[in-house]
């Protein structure tokens, strides 16, 4: 996941959706796809969460500091 960008993940998720929509997938594959899709979605979601958290921290630091300037870098 770490190698893929958020956009790539989202794209993949959309492809899965398209494949599923086509209805041509055997069940097992579909389930597999669907499971992949779920994972992707969950991953994207958590990325966004993570980003939001990060921003929050950034802004929080910003707000605090200015005094101590503890800068979180990752």
């Amino acid at each position: 996941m770490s190698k893929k960008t958020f956009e790539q993940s989202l794209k993949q998720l959309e492809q899965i959706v398209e494949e599923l929509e086509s209805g041509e997938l055997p069940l097992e594959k579909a389930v597999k796809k669907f499971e992949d899709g779920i994972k992707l979605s969950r991953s994207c979601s958590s990325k966004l969460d993570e980003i939001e958290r990060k921003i929050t921290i950034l802004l929080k630091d910003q707000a605090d500091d200015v005094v101590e300037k503890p800068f979180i870098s990752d």
Partner: protein
Amino acid sequence: MNHRNDSKLQQIYQVSELTANIKSLLEEKFSIIWITGEISNFSKPVSGHYYFSLKDRHAQINAVMFRGQNRRLNFIPENGMQITALGRISIYEPRGTYQLIIEHLEPKGIGALQIAFEQLKEKLSQEGLFDHSFKKPIPFLPQKICIITSPTGAVVHDIIKIATRRFPNLYIQILPVSVQGDHAEKEIADAIAFMNSTLDSDVAILARGGGSIEDLWAFNTESVARAIFSSNIPVISAVGHETDFTISDFVADLRAPTPSAAAELVLPVKMDLLHKIESKKKQLEIFIKQCREQKRYQALELSNRLINPKKTAEDFRLKIDDLCNQMVKTLSYHVKHKFEQLALQKKCLYSTRFHDQVKRNKEILEQNHFNSLKSIDFYITKNRFNLLETTGKMNALNPIAILERGYSITRKITDKKIIKDSETVSIGENLEIILAKGILNCNVEGKSSHVKKDI
């Protein structure tokens, strides 16, 4: 003009020079002479002097007899009168004329005594006994006076009286002599000699009252004349009256007309002298006081004019004060001006746009901050929306949804492999059956390879 008969250079006289020479020559030579002649051209102007000529058969000479002298004559001369005169030659330079100044005059016809007198007089005169050069000065204030005269008679008393009146404190010694008679000549001569040898008189008066030529004869003798001449003490001859002339008169150092006159001639008036001294002293005093006052005045005046430099010093003081005040004023102004300049610059410095710059930058910074927040928010929102949408779509396509319709899925428990063919399982194998709701764990008890198509 060739008057150079000898080798000597002839002197050229000025007229006055020559006349002066002639005058001194003649007047010296003929200082006292007796002359006889006939009077002619007699005149007597208002002045009272007698003017006339004396002549003989071959010559004539002008003569004058002044009033002072002619008053003593007991007769008035007239033209044609034969006279014998005593006088001297005088030169009147302005006219180059000469004339006789007559002192005494008498009608001709003199006696034997007169001749003897004349002869002796001529002789002594020739010898120079009458010469002025031999005449000794009479001391101004004789301390001791010797009177050679007769102790009896008025003469001595007259002299003493007059002398004492003139000068009260006097030392008068009287040498008594006979003044007529046989012993007179010797006594007088001896007295003069005695006086010179013994006494220290300052002056002597040889005196006798008036008388005939015979009475006065002792004073016309040669021994008396020589005694007088050889006297070291000045001798005043005071014999007879004013008109009586004796040899003594001629040879004496001074002739007094009368004995009384001798006292006057020989002594100053003491009071006059004292007055004179006093007056001189007074003059001295006045003068020195004037001199001193004048000098004092000069010194005082100059001292008063001395300018005290204090005034100048005070002026300078004021000037220095002025300059200092000016200096202070100027510098104060200068400093104040600098203060103002500085204050202005300070004010400008504080009010520069520099403050705005900070404020503006702050605003820009805030704006950017705000924009970046907005942007990032946008990013997150957009992506979250996309994700949600896509996830939703996917959820709608969930293959497990068919179970709701009664289908189930059988899987091996071990590898979760969905079983589509009964042949792939063996009896007794445990399988799981996934239902719409829940999962069943089953054991295969039997199997068939056919599927009823009517399910």
